[in-house]
Each structure stands twice: as C-alpha cells, then as structure tokens.
C-alpha cells in the first residue's frame, strides 16, 4: 500500500467476514504475550505509534464501496487500551476511531485483538512480536536479533507483506474440492451477559509432544482427537441422539505451502470428521483424523479449495452485485451453509519463534478466538516450554472443557486451568 495510493482491496478470505460478523459472531481473535513485568501503558503507546506505519495493512479503516468493502490507511490516533472483561468483542467499524484492531494491556499481558478480515493469527503474531520487541527496547533493554526474525522500526513495509496471496496463487483450474458434510452442533443455555466464556489450560510443551508421539501422531492431531472424544462423551453422557458426524474445522497456514510472506489472511480450512459409532476410543479418533489429513492436507486438495474460493469471487455475477445485496445473500447463505459444517474449531498456531533476547522476556503466550454462535472455538499456542489451549464458548455448560482437560490430566499431564468465570455473570 503505497503512500500515494493508499487503499487496499480485502483479501479473498477476509471478504466474507464483514458480511457475516455481528455481536455474537464477532470473528475476532486475540494473541496475548505475558511478559515478566507489569505493562507500562505510555511506553506501549509509544511502541505502537512507532510501528504503526510499518504495518500499513493492520492500521486501516474499512470503507464501503459500491460493490465491495475496501481499506484505507487510517491516520486517526490509535490508542492502546486497558483490557475489559469482554474478550474478543465485536469490532464496529464506526467505533475506535475506525480501527479494526485493539492493542490491550492488563497486568503483565499485552494483547492484540483483531478482526479476522484484516489478517490471520500468523500475521497478528508478527505484529505482536514487533510491538513487544519495540516496547522492550523503549524500556531500555538491549535486544539482539541476529537472524532478523522480528519486523523492526526503521525498515520499509515490503510489497510481499501486503499482497493477496490467494489471488497470486490462483491458477484458474477447476478442481474437485472437498465438501464437508453437515455436522453435529453443541447446544446449551446462552449466557445471561453476552460475551465469551473462556477456559485456558496450561501444560508443558515437551510433555504434550511426548504424549502425542506416544500415540504416533502430531500435537494438533492429538489435541483434535481428545477434543472429538470429549464431545463424543458429552453426547453419550447426555444421551443425545445424533446421526450427524462430529467435525473439527482446522485452519491451515498456507504460507509454508506457497512460500508467502504476506501479513494478510492466507489460511484455508480442513475438516476433521468422525462418524458417530458406539464405543469409540481415542485411537479411533486419531485414525479418523489421520485419514482426513491424508485426504485434505495436501497441495492438490488445498489448491482446489483455493481455486474454488477464488472462482466465487471472480464470477461476474458477484462482481457486479451491489454491496447491500451481497451482504444480504452472505448473511442468509453463510448461516445456512458454512454455519453448520463444524462442531468446533481448532487453531494451532504452533511455537512462537523469535530471537532469544526477546523470548527471554516473554513468560508465555495465549491465543483466543471469539466463540461462534453455533460452536465452540479452541486455540493452541506454544511459547518456550509452555503450551496453552484455550476453549471459548457462548453457552454456560462446561461439559466439554471439563472432559477435555481432565482427560489430558488423566493421561499424565500436569494441567493448570484458568477461566474468566463468565458463567457467574
């Protein structure tokens, strides 16, 4: 986004979010960094001000066009804020000086809450690392970054960081994409106070990896299997009659498949599906998940999904359809189709990389996504030897969380649980 021509089209994945987002389906996620000391708000504000122009694709405002939304550079003041109880709250484009992200502080935590239309978690992590790095620099710490792992003040924004990688890698071929079936949806009692209930479990990364290897699978596969098992047992315990499969929607970071450096959205999804049968054990779930991985997590299948998504966007009918009609169609269509395809979402951002001098100041990190109106959201992030698994929900019942964390504990992991106790409000 050059200075002279400061506007930007929304990327392919980001285009859907402004149409479907609302207060109880915010499509907002949060990345938090826990430092070893209490946050000083004025220093944090300076750090953000210093970096604002280095990340032009984040500090934008969304404007309404005739056919699509678009972004413009936002020159209004950006203010860091103290965290409130409402985590991952809906980002209204007419509030917060038009910004679609918040940078928050609370005790020793710096958090970035972002509307998904701007970027995905990988992009947000880069912004977060840069802010924490600058913040520590301003506090007077001497940090070293030998391998340029953090974006720093003074460097110019790169063109590669603001490209729409979906568009760049679209090859126009019509391929058969995987079509997810309708999935079982968890039902429960809505919260009295609108918001997200959150439970976070903290475990040691090395213990979790060893446990996953014991079951001959990756950490994401293992956590997915435990999650599916928890939902399965919840159904069984409550004698819920259901013929629909259990399904986890799993975002896939496409950057490594296409060698992309973009800081905007570049994720696709795969579905981990388990048909409901009597007497399923953890190994059965792991086998099903591995099968889904084999079917969907390959470049051909991902390219087919990417092409299909791009073909929808490229169709003349959609291009010429006015924005208000698109909004109407998306609101109806998304709820009817995409809303019922997954029982739960699980996003594993993996291990946070960075220079040792920076990581030495970070105790751990947290990754939270706003609970969808129809399902729970779970996120996993590792920093150092700490892995945090968060589960957000919009219902009062905690059966799945209880089943999930107590099962991890029963497998030998030491699980430390924290919660925002939203059900007590």
């Amino acid at each position, binding site marked *: 986004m050059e200075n002279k*021509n*400061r*506007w930007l*089209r929304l990327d392919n994945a980001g285009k859907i979010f402004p149409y479907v987002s609302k207060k109880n389906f915010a499509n907002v996620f949060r990345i938090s960094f826990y430092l070893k000391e209490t946050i000083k708000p004025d220093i944090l504000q300076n750090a953000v001000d210093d970096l604002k122009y280095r990340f032009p694709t984040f500090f934008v405002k969304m*404007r309404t*066009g*005739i*056919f*699509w939304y*678009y972004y*413009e550079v936002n*020159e*209004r003041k950006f203010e860091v804020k*103290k*965290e*409130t*109880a*409402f*985590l991952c709250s809906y980002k209204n484009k*007419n*509030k917060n*000086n*038009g910004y679609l992200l918040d940078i928050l502080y*609370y*005790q020793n935590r710096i958090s970035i809450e972002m509307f998904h239309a701007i970027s995905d978690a990988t992009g947000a992590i880069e912004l977060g690392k840069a802010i924490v790095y600058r913040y520590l620099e301003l506090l007077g710490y001497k940090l070293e970054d030998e391998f340029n792992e953090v974006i720093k003040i003074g460097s110019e924004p790169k063109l590669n960081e603001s490209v729409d990688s979906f568009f760049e890698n679209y090859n126009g071929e019509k391929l058969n994409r995987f079509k997810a079936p309708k999935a079982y949806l968890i039902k429960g009692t809505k919260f009295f*106070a609108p918001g997200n209930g*959150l*439970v*976070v*479990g*903290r475990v040691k990364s090395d213990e979790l990896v060893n446990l996953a290897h014991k079951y001959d699978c990756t950490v994401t596969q293992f956590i997915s299997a435990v999650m599916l098992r928890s939902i399965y047992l919840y159904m069984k315990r409550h004698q819920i009659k259901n013929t629909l499969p259990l399904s986890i929607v799993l975002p896939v970071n496409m950057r490594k498949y296409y060698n992309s450096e973009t800081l905007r959205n570049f994720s696709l999804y795969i579905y981990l599906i388990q048909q409901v049968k009597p007497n399923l054990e953890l190994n059965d779930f792991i086998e099903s998940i591995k099968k889904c991985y084999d079917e969907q997590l390959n470049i051909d299948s991902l390219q087919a999904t990417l092409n299909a998504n791009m073909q929808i966007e490229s169709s003349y009918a959609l291009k010429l359809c006015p924005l208000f009609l698109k909004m109407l169609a998306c609101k109806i269509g998304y709820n009817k189709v995409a809303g019922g395809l997954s029982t739960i979402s699980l996003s594993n951002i993996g291990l946070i990389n960075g220079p040792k001098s920076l990581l030495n100041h970070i105790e751990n990190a947290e990754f939270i996504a706003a609970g969808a109106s129809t399902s729970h959201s779970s996120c996993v992030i590792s920093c150092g030897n700490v892995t945090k698994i968060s589960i957000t929900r919009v219902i009062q019942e*905690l059966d799945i*969380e*209880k089943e999930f*964390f*107590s099962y991890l*504990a*029963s497998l030998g992991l*030491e*699980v*430390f*649980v*924290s*919660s*925002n*106790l939203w059900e007590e*409000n």
Partner: protein
Amino acid sequence: MYCKSCNVYVETHTLVCPLCKKNLIEDNTQEVVNYPSIKKISSIRKLIRRIVLAVCLSAIIICTMINLLTFNGSYWTTIVDVGCLAVILMFQFSMRKWVRLGKTLFSGTLCIIILLIAIDMFAYKEKVSSASWSLNYTMPLILAGSLITSTVFLFFGDLFFSEFYNHAITLSVLNILTLLRINKTDVIWPIFVSASLGIVVIMMMLFIFKEKLFEQFKRKFHA
C-alpha cells in the same frame, strides 16, 4: 488450588473448580487474576439516550392524541412527530463522535429538511407562498450552510476528503435541486444562493479536486 474431581490445578482466584464447580483443595498453586471482571459501567450516554427517546415518544403520542381528539382539519401534530423523530435520529448519529462526522452532518441536514417540508405541508391551513418561510428561506439556507461546512473539510487533507467528498457532492445536487421551487415562490434569492453554491462546489470538485475525486471513485467502484 487443586480440583480432585478434574485432576487439574486452578490458577483463577475462585473457591470452586471452573470446570466441575466442586470445592477446591488448597495447595501451593499460585493464584493470579487472569481476566478482568465485569464492572457495571454507569453509562450516562445510554441514560441520556433513553431519556431523549422517552420524551420524544411521549410528545409524539400525546400530541397525536390531542390533534385527533380536537381535530379541526389540520394535522399539525405531524410537525411535532417529524421534529421528534429528527431529534431522535440526530441524537443517534451525534453520539458516534468524530469518526462519522460527515455522516452526522449529512443526516442532520436531511432530518431538518424533512422537518421543514412537514412544517410547510401542515403548518398553514391556507397556503400563502410568502408565509412559507420553511421552504422559502430556511431549506435553501440550511442546505447551503451544510454544503459550505462539508466543503471546508475537503481542504483539511486526505483524511477528511475521503469522508466528506460524497456528502459534498450529494449536498451540491440537493442545493441545485432547489431551483425546482423557483416557480412556486416569490422569494427567489435564497434559492439562487443555494443553487449557485451547489454549482460552484461541483465545479470546484471537477477542477481543484479532480485527481482526488477520480481516486475516490476508483476505490468506490473497485476499478
């Protein structure tokens, strides 16, 4: 704290397990205040909005009842109704601070215009053109004033240009459209002021802000 039932350590400051709600056993786990709790925010803004809404709705209901019960051929209550609705709408927009300044100004102007039309339609039993101050004087001058304000913001840089240019164009067109009333009134100077101002702003857009305007259209149409 430790939960015997779930086999997990609890770091949140609570006496019961956040998962199973059973009592916790004390141990050496460090308790931390992880997340801020809900504080009841005394939202003065919300209260004021509710009071305004209540007063306006009451005024609408009471006036409509009185008008209907003592009906003498005139629907004078329409002025009160439109006026109250205009207040509610303007109040709603003006609460949104600077980020929607252009929209606030534009919607405020539209509300007043609708109110003026209502006054003209229902205030006079016998229509005398020179007495129709609302459309003869106030409407063109309000439109002109609003257009001048929007146009001034165009000079304040790209940030304001992108927010005000579309309102400036629409207001210019509305100003020019006041010419349609030229045959219906004896008072023509406000109409000339308003219309000529509209033409001047359109010309200014085309000659002074041509590049910026073209750029904005490009964005709007995704060209």
